[in-house]
């Protein structure tokens, strides 16, 4: 590692004259002295996902297939005890009607028939009302609530000030010396959502990268641009009532990202987001 220092520092001096030689600058920077300036600023960004709470509706082919499988299962099956009991009782009823009540049991005897049981169960089911799959937040399109779109992934977008522009971004924080990029992302989450949020980070490695150069007015030799490393995390805590959200925030699905993010940024972000 020590030998090529001279060789790399040499061409570095000449390479800096040519714009866009980012790779050479990177090499030179890494292998030269510790005081060499880094032209890229590092940011750690966090893609916080709220996982789906309900199942997605079946597509048309899936529904047809499910119906077919049910039919085939019914055809291949045998009668169960309950069904046999039902058939026997139907036959008994028929015989009683035809033979005009000449049995010795008498009509006063109360016998619970299988059909009665089925009706009772049906009634009990109707009494139970489940929560609806489409919530109020869905109907009113309240994008700041977590109860929207319960069948897809929601991710957090915040409005941040970059340079002199206010942009919608995934929450990011600048990397400081002495911490790993994952802890930068955790710090970003703490800044925007407070300390009481539990999230499960998926590994130490970044999932994606967005690299951009600063506009020429503020570009210096030391500060060519920024690299934003994205990390993914799953939201564990269910309610965010304790969160102190200072800036504007939104919870959006992957399809709605296009309305908020810029095209280049969106392209990079879409690469590491799975389409459900």
């Amino acid at each position, binding site marked *: 590692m020590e030998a090529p220092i001279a060789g790399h520092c040499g061409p570095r001096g000449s390479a800096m004259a040519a714009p866009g030689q980012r790779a050479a600058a990177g090499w030179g920077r*890494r292998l030269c002295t510790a005081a060499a300036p880094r032209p890229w600023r590092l940011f750690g960004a966090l893609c916080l996902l709220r996982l789906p709470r309900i199942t997605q509706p079946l597509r048309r082919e899936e529904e047809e297939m499910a119906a077919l499988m049910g039919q085939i299962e019914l055809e291949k099956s045998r*009668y169960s005890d309950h069904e046999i009991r039902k058939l026997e009782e139907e036959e008994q009823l028929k015989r009683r009607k035809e033979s005009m009540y000449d049995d010795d049991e008498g009509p006063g005897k109360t016998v619970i028939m299988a059909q009665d049981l089925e009706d009772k169960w049906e009634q009990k089911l109707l009494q139970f009302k*489940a929560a609806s799959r489409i919530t109020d937040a869905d109907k009113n399109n309240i994008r700041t609530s977590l109860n929207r779109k319960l069948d897809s992934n929601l991710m957090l977008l915040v409005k941040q000030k970059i340079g002199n522009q206010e942009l919608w971004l995934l929450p990011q924080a600048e990397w400081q010396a002495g911490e790993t990029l*994952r802890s930068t992302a955790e710090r970003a989450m703490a800044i925007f959502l407070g300390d009481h949020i539990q999230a499960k980070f998926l590994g130490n490695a970044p*999932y*994606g990268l967005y690299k951009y150069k600063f506009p020429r007015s503020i570009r210096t030799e030391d500060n060519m641009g920024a690299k934003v490393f994205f990390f993914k995390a799953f939201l564990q805590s269910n309610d965010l009532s304790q969160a102190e959200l200072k800036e504007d925030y939104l919870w959006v699905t992957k399809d709605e990202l296009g309305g908020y993010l810029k095209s280049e940024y969106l392209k990079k972000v879409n690469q590491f987001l799975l389409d459900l």
Partner: protein
Amino acid sequence: MRVQPKKKKKVDIKREQAQKDRMKKKIRKLEKAAPEMIPIEDFITPSKYSESNRVRSLPPLSFEETERRVLLMKKWSLYKQKQDEAEKKAIQTLVAAQQEALKELRLESEELYQAAIKRDEGLFPFERDGPNYTPPLPGYDPPEGKCIDITKVYTQ
């Protein structure tokens, strides 16, 4: 008078020893036999379901119905193939994006890269409650009751 007790003792001893040997042989035979397999209850159809009165009586399938089923199966296999290909492609883009990010990170600083490729110990075992059909009902009081487990436990 002196001879008889001797006979009894000998005969008894011999008989007892022969009995003991027979018992030991039986025990050895039983031990040598292979242990009985634990039956898997799911694979054994109880005999009461093979009776003839249990067979369902449904009208036979018409020609159109069988045709429809065959065509549906073919459409389904195509649908699943497309779904599988899309999933594999998505995984490939995911991996490519991560590789690119790691490459750029390595260019930036070696120690950050080393910290990034370390194994995350807290990630596994990963548990999650799967999605249900309806969201949880707030303020729901489940009915009281006790669940008694009646599974048969076999010992070898």
